[in-house]
């Protein structure tokens, strides 16, 4: 794969990467920076893998598969980086419009948000999410279950509703 092929591979994915990023860090600038930082990390760590992979300009089906593979690698790095950054930023991250528009979603911790976004917005399977984020299957199911209950205002028996603190599902 050549440089321009690599860019062709990555370019159509950027809007989705931004969408995930902003779901993990609810701040435009932070999210944009996170997309770029995760890209650097992802390409740097897997540079040789991507250079060795074949890229046939005509093979559209192949492009879909390559992008899916890239996305899985990238999502793992983005989520890890977002988790660290959220811990560093802590409460300094402003409660902007996004948090006000999606208050229930942003109550969850970063990894739970990643699970929810991948399942509900990208329709990834539980197994795909688990493998990508390095999470056991039962943990993914538990996070989805809790997210569904809490976001619909039906708290599981062990958790009170209306708790404004961050929820680690």
């Amino acid at each position, binding site marked *: 794969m*050549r*440089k*321009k092929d*690599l*860019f062709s591979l*990555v*370019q159509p994915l*950027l*809007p989705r990467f*931004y*969408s995930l990023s*902003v*779901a993990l860090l*609810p701040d*435009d600038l932070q999210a*944009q920076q996170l*997309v*770029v930082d995760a*890209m*650097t990390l992802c*390409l*740097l760590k897997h*540079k040789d893998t991507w*250079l060795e992979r074949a890229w046939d300009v005509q093979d559209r089906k192949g492009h879909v598969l390559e992008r899916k593979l890239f996305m899985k690698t990238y999502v793992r790095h983005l989520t890890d980086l977002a988790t660290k950054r959220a811990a560093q930023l802590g409460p300094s991250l402003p409660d902007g419009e*996004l948090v006000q*528009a*999606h208050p*229930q*979603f942003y109550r969850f911790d970063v990894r739970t948000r990643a699970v*929810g*976004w991948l*399942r*509900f*917005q990208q*329709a990834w*399977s*539980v197994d795909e999410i688990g493998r990508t984020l390095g999470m056991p299957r039962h943990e993914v*199911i538990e996070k*989805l*279950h809790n*997210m*569904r209950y809490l*976001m*619909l205002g039906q708290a599981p028996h062990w958790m009170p509703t209306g708790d404004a603190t961050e929820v680690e599902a």
Partner: protein
Amino acid sequence: MITGEENFNRKIPAYLDGLLPEEERLEFEAFVGANPVFAREFRQKEADYEGVKRRIPDLRPSGEQLEQMEVETREIIQNLFKDEDAGTSDKLAQWWRGLF
């Protein structure tokens, strides 16, 4: 004793999460198709599921943001893969420059 409906009722979350194996999924869909009362209950749960989806942000970048990310991505690739795809003429030019 668990009735057929109770059994399928328990399977709704697993179905919506895409966790049912192929055979059970088909069996579940057949049951929904054959039982209008259960189908109504299922559609309600399905609507709840869509409600969760709507509560999760799916924000797309503005044109300006996208352009900026594209530029930075190009730069990253340019910097990381400096000499990887140099053609013969590039390599010759590099070799020539190296002489001086």
